[in-house]
Every structure is written in structure tokens, then in C-alpha cells.
């Protein structure tokens, strides 16, 4: 008995100090203001009256939903492509190569895309020019285009992960099902719609959920690319919470924002899980 405790103890200790205590502390902290005065739900009221906070919530959702939808759709598309019959060596090489962006440090991903979005250093404007497109290439300085630009960087970064997961699930679908569908006269799209999609339904929802949670708290990429600018047009909840705590030193208010983030994630996750369970 005591042997068991000794084995688990390090894990339990870490868990307590690193997760349980901080979580409780954040809830407590969110009820105090900058001068350590107890103000009840004052910080939460302040948040809902702050247009910048509301903007950051909206932009978080745009960033997250756009990323997740593109990850799942593009990931599935590439996975289906790589799942076609082809030379084995070629397939494995391509799969290893396409995995590279995922292994790169998020901060370096931000560096790469800052370079690509820079009007003087990027190769993209001249490529576009040779295609006859003359576009002013100043994406990260543009209030309307900065958020989509940052989202594209995020899509590029974790696409390989979702592609690999979907490829693994595709390979688990028994080939007989496709044959049977073929005998019944299903064409390639019908086979995709009635064999592939139903089989991948749960993994698609799981990945969507996974991405949702991951992108919602993703700080590195946006911070290094734009620091929330220009004119707060790429400010998301993560950068907003960071700013309140470590630039304004308003720990109580930042904790309240963190609690709100946590609640939004909880509600959305439960919603998606319910969706998964209900239609099963």
C-alpha cells in the first residue's frame, strides 16, 4: 500500500501545486482589484464594459473558428490525397516533409510569417506580380487584413498535425467498405460522403475540439507577429489577459479575464462533446 503512494506521490504533488492550487487562486484573485481590495464581481463587470475586451473575444472566435475549420477541411483533403495508392517510398518521404512545419517552434513560425508579410523582404509580392497581380503587400499593418494574415500563419503551422491524425484514421477504414460501395454503384464523391465522412465523424469533432482549445489560448504566434496590433485589430483574449497582468500589473482583472476564458472554453467543449454523444 505505502509503496503505491510513494510511486504516485511526485505526480500528485506536482498536480496539486501546478494545477489545483493555481486554479483556486485564480478564482480568488479575480475578486480583488489592483489595491487588493475585495470587489466581488467588479472585475467581471469591468470586462463586459470594456470595448477592447469585447473586441478581443470577438477576434479570438474569428481566429479560432477559422483556424479549426481550415485545419479540419484542408487536413482531410491532403490526407485523402496522401491516402491514394502511390509509391510507398514517395508517400513516406512526402509525409515526413509535410510534417516539418509542425515541428518548428511557434516563435520561429511567427518569424517566418513576419518575413513573408514584410513588403521589402518577402518573395510573395514579386511572385504575385509575375502572375499579373499588383497588390500592396502590407498585411500586418492593415487593420482589416492583419487578423486573417495571422490566422493563415496558424493554419500553416498546425495543418500537418491534423493531416497526420486524419491520415491515420483514414488508413483504419476497412477497404471492403469502399469495394462494397463501388459494387452498389457509388461514385468517388458518394463513397467519400457515405463511407469516409461517417467513419471520421467522431475524430473530426475531437480534432475540432482539440484545435478550438489549443488556438483559443495560443499566445506565442500573435504576440510575436503583431503584439495585438495594428490598433488592437489582432488582440485576442490571450494577449489581452497578458497585457493586463504583465504590462498594467492589474493581476485581479487579468485573473477575471482568465476565468472568463476558462468558462468559455468549458462551455464550448461541453457543447461539442454533447453534439458528439447525441448523434452517435
Amino acid at each position, binding site marked *: *500500500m505505502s509503496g*503505491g*503512494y510513494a*510511486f*504516485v506521490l*511526485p*505526480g*500528485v504533488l*506536482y*498536480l496539486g501545486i*501546478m*494545477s489545483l*492550487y*493555481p*486554479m483556486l*487562486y*485564480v478564482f480568488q*484573485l479575480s475578486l480583488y482589484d489592483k489595491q487588493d481590495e475585495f470587489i466581488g464581481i467588479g472585475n467581471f463587470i469591468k470586462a463586459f464594459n470594456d470595448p477592447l475586451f469585447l473586441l478581443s473575444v470577438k477576434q479570438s472566435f474569428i481566429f479560432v473558428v477559422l483556424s479549426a475549420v481550415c485545419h479540419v477541411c484542408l487536413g482531410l483533403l491532403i490526407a485523402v*490525397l496522401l491516402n*491514394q495508392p*502511390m509509391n510507398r517510398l514517395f508517400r513516406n518521404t*512526402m509525409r*515526413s*516533409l*509535410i*510534417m*516539418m*512545419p*509542425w*515541428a*518548428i*517552434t*511557434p*516563435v*520561429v513560425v*511567427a*518569424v*517566418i510569417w513576419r*518575413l*513573408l508579410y*514584410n513588403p*521589402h*523582404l*518577402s*518573395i510573395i509580392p*514579386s511572385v504575385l*506580380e509575375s502572375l499579373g497581380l499588383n497588390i500592396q503587400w502590407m498585411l500586418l499593418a492593415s487593420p482589416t487584413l492583419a487578423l486573417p494574415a495571422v490566422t493563415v500563419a496558424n493554419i*500553416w503551422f498546425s495543418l500537418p*498535425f491534423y493531416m497526420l*491524425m486524419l491520415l*491515420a*484514421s483514414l488508413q483504419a477504414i476497412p477497404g471492403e467498405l469502399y469495394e462494397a460501395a463501388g459494387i452498389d454503384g457509388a461514385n468517388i464523391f458518394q463513397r467519400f460522403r457515405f463511407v469516409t465522412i461517417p467513419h471520421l465523424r467522431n475524430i473530426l469533432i475531437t480534432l475540432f475540439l482539440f484545435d478550438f482549445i489549443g488556438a483559443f489560448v495560443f499566445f*506565442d504566434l500573435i504576440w510575436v507577429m503583431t503584439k495585438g496590433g495594428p490598433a488592437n485589430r489582432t488582440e485576442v483574449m*490571450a494577449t489581452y489577459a*497578458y497585457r493586463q497582468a504583465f504590462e498594467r500589473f492589474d*493581476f485581479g482583472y*487579468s*485573473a477575471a479575464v*482568465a476565468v472568463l*476564458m476558462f468558462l468559455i472554453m468549458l462551455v464550448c467543449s461541453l457543447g461539442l462533446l454533447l453534439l458528439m454523444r447525441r448523434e452517435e
Partner: protein
Amino acid sequence: MDCRGRWSNVQRYKLQRGLNSILFYGFVLMLVFAVLAPFVWMVISSISPQVELTKRPPHWFPEEPTLHRFRALIFGAGQGQSMPVATERFVSALVNSLLVSSTTTLVCIVAGSSAAYALVRLPVPGKQHFLVGMLGAQMLPIIVIIIPLYLLMQAAQLLDTRQGLIVLYSGFMLPTVIWIMHSYFQTIPMELEEAAMIDGCSRVGTLVRIVMPLSGPGVVAVAAFTFLSSWNEFFIALILTASQAKTITVIVTEFATQFGIDYGLMTTGGVIGSIPPLILALLLQRYIVQGLTAGAIKG
């Protein structure tokens, strides 16, 4: 006549199929190139001389590739060269990252495997609660609880130290490590351990001699995953470090001079910083994918 016509049909069919597969392989190649191009552009920029960096129109390969930025970052700036402050700190950041990531990996493997083993084999009271708690902890994002952790580190006088980073990183990765190890250990037949114990092996001995070697792929995957995650970590390092313990991810963002950002050095730092994770990912691809699929899909 008839015969010749049929023959040409077969030929036409073969030609068509050949063309189709060339088109298909070409398309896949193009796609892979498009995915890799951004990274390639960073590598090209890092070896382009300053003049060529901003030259219009840009070309894919620099006419006079140079490694002077790599030299400056690793061996220090030459006499009279003015470089951003981050240049001098680069090597120490590299060392910090290596030390922190490898120690974190070690801590996670030791503490994680012993906890996972106990959860599989020993009668630990409240086992189920612990597993559920771990899943919950896995879901808890760092950003939500960073303030208490910062205050905790401040109280423990671990701000701006490598030890502080190691403590937090291993704390964050442990739930995932335990979870994956737990699922690996479950696949090991009990009889092997019993045989070892009859031969006089202790619990710890069985874990080290029987269980760990048998779950080799799992251990490798978990170690690689832990190393990669600590190497890539930015948020905690940004908040916790000020000068001494800065890691490579933090230093890469600091190549600013009074004239603006030195993109040349920044990309060079980025290339150097990507080398360890890329090597790890390529070498251990199979294990990582296995481990992730086990952790993500089953969990």
C-alpha cells in the same frame, strides 16, 4: 486491322494512365513544396547578404550566400561590428534551452513512469480520481493560471532561473506523460513482471529492467514530445525570465536595433532554433505519431 486498332487502344490507355500518375505525383510534389516554401524562404534569407535581402526583384537563391550571421551568433560579433544586444546572449540562451529541455525530459520520464506504473499495477487508493484529475489538468491552459504560478515562483525566488523553468515545464508536461505511459504500461503482460519478481527483482527493479525496456517506443515518443514542447515553449519563458535564464525562443524575438528589427539575424536565430526540433521530429517521426495517436485519439 482490327487487331492493330485494339493494340493502340491498350497503348492509349497505358499512356493515359501514365499521364494521370505523372500529373498526380506532380500535384503532390507541388503541394509539399508550397507547404515547405515559407520555411525555405527563412533559410534563404538567413544566408543572403544584407544587400540581397531587400533587393528587388528577390531571387530564390542568393548570388553570394554568406554564413557571417551564423558566425556572429555562435562565435560573437567581430571587432567594430555593431550588433543587437541579443547577439551576445544567443549562445547562453541556446545553452539554457538545452539544459532546461533535457532536465525537464529526465524529470518527466522518471516521475511520470513511476506514477504511471503505480497506477497500472499497484493498489493506489483513489486511482480513478487521480486519472480524472490528470485529464482535467491536461485541459487546463497555462495562460489561465500563469499569475499564481508567477507569484509562486517569485515567493520561491525562482524567477529568472533555469530551475524555475524546469519546475514549471515538468509540472505542465507530467499529466500528458503519465497519461501516455499509463496506456503503454497497460499493454505489458503481468506474467513477465511476476517472473522477474520471483527471480528476486524489487518493484523498482521490475520497472527499470522489464517494464521500461518493453515500452521502449512509448518512452522514446514521450521523451521526444517532452523535449520538443520544452524547447518550443515561449509564454512561460517570456514571463519568468529577465536576463540570466532567457531561452532561445525569447532571444529570437529580441533582435531589434535602434534602426528597427534585424531580420537577417532574426531568421538566423530562427534557423538555429529549428535545428534540434526538426532533427528530433524527422528521426522519431514514427514514434511521435504513434504516441500522439495513442494519447490524442484514445484520450
